[in-house]
């Protein structure tokens, strides 16, 4: 498909090489398409701009899903992490969430190497300034200096770089990340194409030199002794792990912050845009939870070959002198040196209702958005969108049907559906509570949910597929064995379902059953299925109901203005979102059952004409009922 000799002609161009761009470019090129990955700086491919951690509750599940589909994030994390923890171990298996501290530089270098090694993929340093359009379709991009790239699909993953402005106190610096520049031209191009842009804000904490931290005084937080890997390709984690440390703020710190609130850009009015509530700055925490005497700070190492520490918990945009005043008041940080000051960054995003569930823009065929440009936060959220956008861009170029992952299949399905259906009013992060079917969307079964889809689109290679088949078949075999082996009237599976019974009890119960060849993860999988059995059954029923409406399509060209009975609000929302199914239409906020009934009727009207046969019409049934009454006589009135 690609003319190799032309260095500016590709099937797919991906703009931005962060976590979203990386996955998009790797997916498209692995699916066989000539792909260019354009970045402001080749040295920052896959850079972790904020904290040095991957995963966490709900986010860890997303990384496992990315991996199950054939994405890169899980493999990169397993190879470069310096601490692994499975969060929520004390809770049910659906809540177990892998999290890792990564060596930032190692992660980034491996990401770059992975890109460099990838066939069909060209990494190039460019500043993209506009989107090129021909006959209503995307045709490529134009870069600084007038260079033009031609492509049939373009994926924009601009992160926080669009018209980015960093704030530290009163000081404002253009740039999307400390030490980097901002992308200035692209916003104008998007605006001229008719895209709506709005602004969000996010923040980072100061980073400290570990030589100047008194770790003796701090509480260490070690990794797990049995680390759980992110990738289904990783057998076990063998590297040594490093500790994080925990310390706390105190009333003296809070007093200084309170006295200087007027100098914080969020409070002085210098920043107007919305920041995330779940990732508040320390000044926010102190204002909103005034009665708290202390806030936790996690000191997270940025890597093995650096002493830099990330102060998770005190993200701030207060001026330098205030940051310098509060750090020494924190236990263990009395002599700590700040290496990089905290800052807030404001950036443009494009409200994601402008997208289809493929992440293609509705307005401009061939143009895809992924990551923070869609109003999300988080490496994992970005990467999963990049993967889906990259896959769909590639499928579209190949004239294949798109890959749509729904809410019942994956967190990344929940993520994309929430974005395109409900939009965002603060930077969007995934939580397990956003998923209706979270008992099924577990980290342990991500491969069972998604690897076949990854294989269908051509992203799962033979090695991954072979491993998957082995595991899937072993699980099925063990499940079957347990269900067919009966002891005292009950199957072993039924025994296992009892809240109090364990796998070891089962082994004692029935020595005869063949447990050869079942690995620990296979056994775990079947135990979870048994323990959650009744609840999983309920969720499966809910999913069947959900699917019935999800499978009822709404024509893409339905003219909502021609439905006079729709309320103005409903019409406006349907017009904007253009839901692809009845299910999606019902999830739009503010849509009532009456709106849905109107829509149902309209869809029917568009279909077959109403028949006139009407056996149960009141006019017809009344005689039948009259007859009934005569038949029943007085018998029905004798109570």
């Amino acid at each position, binding site marked *: 498909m690609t003319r190799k000799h032309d260095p500016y002609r590709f099937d797919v161009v991906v703009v931005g090489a962060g976590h979203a761009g990386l996955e998009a470019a790797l997916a498209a090129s692995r699916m066989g398409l000539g792909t260019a990955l354009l970045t402001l700086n080749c040295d920052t491919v896959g850079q972790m701009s904020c*904290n040095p951690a991957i995963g966490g509750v709900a986010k860890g599940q997303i990384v496992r899903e990315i991996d199950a589909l054939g994405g890169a994030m899980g493999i990169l994390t397993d190879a470069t992490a310096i601490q692994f923890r499975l969060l929520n171990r004390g809770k049910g298996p659906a*809540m177990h969430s892998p999290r890792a501290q990564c060596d930032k530089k190692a992660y980034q270098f491996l990401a770059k190497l992975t890109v460099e090694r990838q066939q069909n993929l060209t990494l190039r340093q460019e500043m993209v300034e506009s989107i090129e359009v021909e006959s209503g379709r995307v045709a490529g991009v134009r870069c600084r200096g007038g260079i033009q790239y031609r492509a049939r699909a373009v994926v924009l993953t601009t992160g926080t770089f669009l018209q980015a402005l960093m704030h530290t106190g009163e000081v404002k610096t253009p740039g999307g990340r400390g030490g980097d520049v901002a992308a200035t031209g692209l916003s104008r191009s998007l605006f001229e194409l008719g895209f709506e842009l709005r602004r969000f804000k996010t923040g980072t904490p100061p980073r400290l030199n570990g030589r100047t931290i008194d770790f003796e005084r701090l509480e260490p937080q070690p990794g797990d002794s049995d680390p759980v890997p992110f990738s289904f390709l990783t057998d076990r984690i063998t590297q040594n792990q490093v500790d994080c440390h925990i310390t706390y703020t105190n009333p003296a710190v809070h007093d200084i912050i309170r006295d200087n609130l007027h100098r914080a850009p969020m409070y002085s009015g210098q920043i107007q845009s919305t920041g995330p509530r779940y990732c508040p700055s320390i000044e926010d925490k102190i204002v909103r939870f005034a009665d708290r005497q202390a806030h936790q700070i996690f000191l997270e190492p940025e890597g093995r070959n650096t002493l830099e520490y990330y102060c998770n918990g005190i993200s701030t945009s207060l001026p330098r002198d205030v940051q310098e005043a509060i750090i020494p008041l924190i236990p263990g940080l009395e002599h700590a040196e700040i290496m990089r000051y905290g800052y807030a960054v404001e950036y443009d995003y494009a409200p994601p209702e402008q997208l289809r569930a493929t992440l293609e823009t509705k307005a401009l065929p061939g143009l895809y958005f992924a990551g923070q440009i869609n109003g999300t936060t988080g490496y994992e959220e970005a990467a999963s969108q990049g993967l889906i956008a990259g896959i769909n861009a590639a499928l579209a170029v190949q004239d294949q049907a798109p890959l749509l992952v729904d809410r019942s299949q994956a967190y990344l399905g929940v993520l994309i559906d929430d974005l395109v259906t409900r939009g965002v009013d603060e930077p969007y992060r995934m939580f397990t509570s956003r998923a209706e079917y979270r008992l099924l969307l577990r980290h342990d079964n991500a491969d069972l949910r998604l690897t076949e889809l990854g294989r269908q689109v051509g992203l799962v290679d033979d090695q991954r597929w072979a491993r998957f088949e082995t595991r899937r078949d072993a699980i099925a075999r063990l499940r079957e064995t347990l269900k067919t082996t009966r002891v005292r009237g009950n199957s072993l599976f039924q025994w296992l379902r009892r809240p109090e019974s364990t796998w070891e009890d089962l082994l004692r119960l029935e020595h005869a059953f063949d447990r050869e060849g079942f690995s620990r993860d296979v056994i775990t999988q079947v135990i979870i299925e048994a323990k959650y059995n009744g609840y999983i059954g309920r969720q499966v029923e809910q999913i069947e109901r959900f699917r*019935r409406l999800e499978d009822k399509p709404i024509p893409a060209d339905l003219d909502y203005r021609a439905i006079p009975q729709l309320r103005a609000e409903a019409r406006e929302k349907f017009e904007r979102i253009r839901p692809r199914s009845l299910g999606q239409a*019902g999830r739009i906020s503010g849509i009532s059952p009456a709106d849905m009934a109107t829509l149902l009727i309209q869809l*029917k009207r568009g279909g077959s004409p109403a028949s006139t046969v009407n*056996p149960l019409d009141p006019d017809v049934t009344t005689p039948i009922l009259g007859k009934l009454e005569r*038949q029943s006589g007085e018998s029905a009135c004798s109570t």
Partner: protein
Amino acid sequence: MLADLDPEDTIAAVASPPGPGVRGLVRISGRNAWRIALDGFRSERDSSPPRRPEVRRGALAVEGLRPLLPAIVALWPGPRTYTGQDVAEIHTVGALPLLTQVLAGCLNRGARHARSGEFTLRAFLSGRIDLTRAEAVLGVIDARNSTQLDAALRQLAGGLSRPIHDLRDRLLDLVAHLEANLDFADESDVDPLGRAALADELQSSAETLSALTDRLTRRDRPAGNPRVVVSGPPNAGKSRLFNALLGHDRAIVSPRAGTTRDYLTAACDVGGMIVELIDTAGLDLPRDPIETQAQTHRADQAGQADLLLVCTSPDTLTARGELPHLDTPALSVWTKCDLGRPDPSRAAAAILTSAATGEGLVELRAGIARLVRDSNAEADLPASTGARCRDSLVGAKVALGSASQTLRDGGGEELVALDLRLALDELGKVVGAVVTDDILDRIFQRFCIGK
């Protein structure tokens, strides 16, 4: 919310007209219509599914009722039915409490309570009726949609709205706390919710729900008669009119303003239809505790009215008549017309009456009958509205029971949360749906989240 309109569900509703009648019926449509109708139905015929429209006579077991209820079940195989689906009707005695029980049985066996207009919607979707008729029904759904909840609670559960809201609030807090512990395990100072505390809270919420369900049942009008409330300023002759409409002296009357302190109710025949006529204290500013109570009764009754008779008399002209409660139909009635007649320009649409001479009473009865019939035709059946509220409360209670059981069995918080959200969904049908954003809002309000 949307799932409530799924055309594949089996739906059921009381389908006979309101008010006492000789025969009443419950209509069921959907895949399981026959099974739901025939479960608990004893007849000489076996309960095999019919191949053509068929009528079976027999008796019906109804929960809470010892003798079997004589009943007829009519079965129609789809698609040649009104809704295009399998349809069943249970015809039995027309008493509303019985029909409500029959319906409850159907819901227990897996039917969902039909939304208003839903049978018609299905009829359209299956091509059985044309667009014009479907739209007429849609208009009804639409008009009712915004006010349905308020109306339902006002009609049947006056005073219940607040406690249901409060309960929902408590459950929402509970879910937010559970979810905060699940989603922010490592990045907040959320105090863990002890299992004992959780069990207590579930138990007390379930008790509140039981109490609410009982109150709702008591509030439910036994005969389901429409409520017609006589209202107006003190001394407007309300009680005299009340007696005149009844045809006998039930209320104490006197020329003194403020004679009626309590409210009185009586069944009244208005041209072949029985309504519940309610006499209330005059609308006035209370001067003492008894009057305060009288005013509270008055407001309660007016709030639950299906129809208000707003009375004005020549000698109370200066007093302001009560503004009809939002959405409640009202009739303007001039009383004591033997003492003087209003200026025709002020009373063009009013009915002029005199309890002393009997003038206008025939017209008034006819007017009441007409308006009550109209409002019932438009509105949901009062019975089914009440039943729907009750279904939701019962559904919420079942979910809470299941949450408690999960907790006792040692199940995790994520499983308890599943049931709690189900309970919230049920309450949401009565007092507004809860979406994930509501839960997140609470989490971020209450807990300091974020590293």
